[in-house]
């Protein structure tokens, strides 16, 4: 076996071992938002100048979508490892969306953030947020 082959075998073994150990130690769970306020707080940390009107937290509490006062886009915050990732989403950012029961799947145009899905509490809620995203339905706003 050459040094190159040895390196590849060793690395693959190491990654597998480390992933197995981390998983067994419970480190695969990622970030969970305790409630809607926690999701809003995570979003505002990235976009401190925005104001959130309405928020919907996913069933697994790892993703939340929100309408923003006076902004023609939606806010999105979701778990990324043990941390969070926040985005502002406009219809032009979306390549395709797929709605199934209570789940909304989105394919994005951003190569570094290609897709995600969010499961809402009900089909009605899922349709409403899908409508917001496609600007088929006007968000309720307090502004």
């Amino acid at each position, binding site marked *: 076996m050459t*040094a*190159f082959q040895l*390196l*590849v075998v*060793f*690395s*693959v073994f*190491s*990654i597998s*071992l*480390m*992933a197995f*150990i*981390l*998983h067994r*130690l*419970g*480190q*695969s769970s*990622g970030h969970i938002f305790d409630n809607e306020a926690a999701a809003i707080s995570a979003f505002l940390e*990235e*976009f401190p100048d925005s104001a959130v009107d309405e928020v919907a937290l996913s069933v697994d509490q790892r993703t939340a979508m929100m309408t923003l006062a006076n902004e023609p886009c939606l806010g999105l915050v*979701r778990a*990324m*490892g*043990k*941390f969070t*990732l*926040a*985005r*502002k989403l406009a219809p032009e*950012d979306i390549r395709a969306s797929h709605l199934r029961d209570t789940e909304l799947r989105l394919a*994005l145009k*951003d*190569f*570094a*953030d*290609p897709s*995600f899905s969010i499961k809402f509490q009900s089909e009605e809620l899922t349709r409403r947020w899908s409508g917001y995203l496609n600007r088929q339905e006007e968000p309720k706003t307090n502004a």
Partner: protein
Amino acid sequence: MPEMPDLPKVEEFAGPIYMALILLEIFLITGKRAKGLYETRDASVSVAMGLGSAVVPLLVGGAFLAGIYAILFWFYQFAPFKWEFTIWAFLACFLLDDLRYYWSHRFSHTIRWGWANHVIHHSSQHYNLSTALRQPWFSFTTGLFVLKIPLVLLGFHPAMIAFAGSVNLLYQFFIHTETVGRLHPWIEAVFNTPSHHRVHHGRNPRYLDANYAGVLIIWDRLFGTFVPENDSEPVRYGIIKSLGTFNPLRVATHEYLAIGQDMTRRGLTLKQRLAYVFAPPGWSHDGSRKGSRALKAEFVKKHPELAGQPGLPSLDIESGQMADATSSLGAGEITRNTSPVQGTNS
């Protein structure tokens, strides 16, 4: 030509040491005996990126690497004096190579072509020993090897320079950790430490564009880029626009794709197209994006009481700096950590 000894191959013995220490750090952190965070997919991608950084150059960049060493050897013949392989020569080489590393690293943050490669290393929001292995795949394309030419002309054998670089990277593995707080003040004064390097990985405005050092932090102190870790402002790691993927291929190539998208936009001049490649990361022809300077200025406007602190501009010179930055390329300025694809998200 000096006789070349068999230099230790750092990469051959480093792998097991890296993995043993990563596992130790995992057990310390999960056992609540040390500070830090690990997440399975993030750490797996980091180590996979390390594997890619070793494999990809050999698979697709062999000719580049051979060419780079051929160029260095070509310059070596013009060195008026050639150092023998002694410990003193190595120490001198290591010191100068560390200075070379500082500038190479700084250019990797301030030239978008370099940043497209280096962003890989900064793309995790986690900061632990596995992050150290999250290394770029395309370093052979940056052209920054030219910074080694002065060392070669000073008479250091290319193999000695390569060995010094390997030792430098080996040292840097140990500073990618939150488990170590601050070391003795003398060590913090001279060496790059976990505390200093945490700052370098920070995306808080005050920590942007700071602490480029490899082994010796003196270069940052000398060239005005040193920012100490501030206990009242915990470091938020990663890049301004965090990645939304754990796919290693996307992590490795996303900024190159963004450069391609930007420079092929319609209606740009040739100068603007070139600026999308070689200007600071995030530069845009219409000034629509924000970079580290703009982010720092914005932060100081909101927190004027912090103006003038290390890493933050003072209020009175802020407008002048901005004017300088925007006039040179005729549009908005930006430096590291801002994704040029969709402008800033902060």
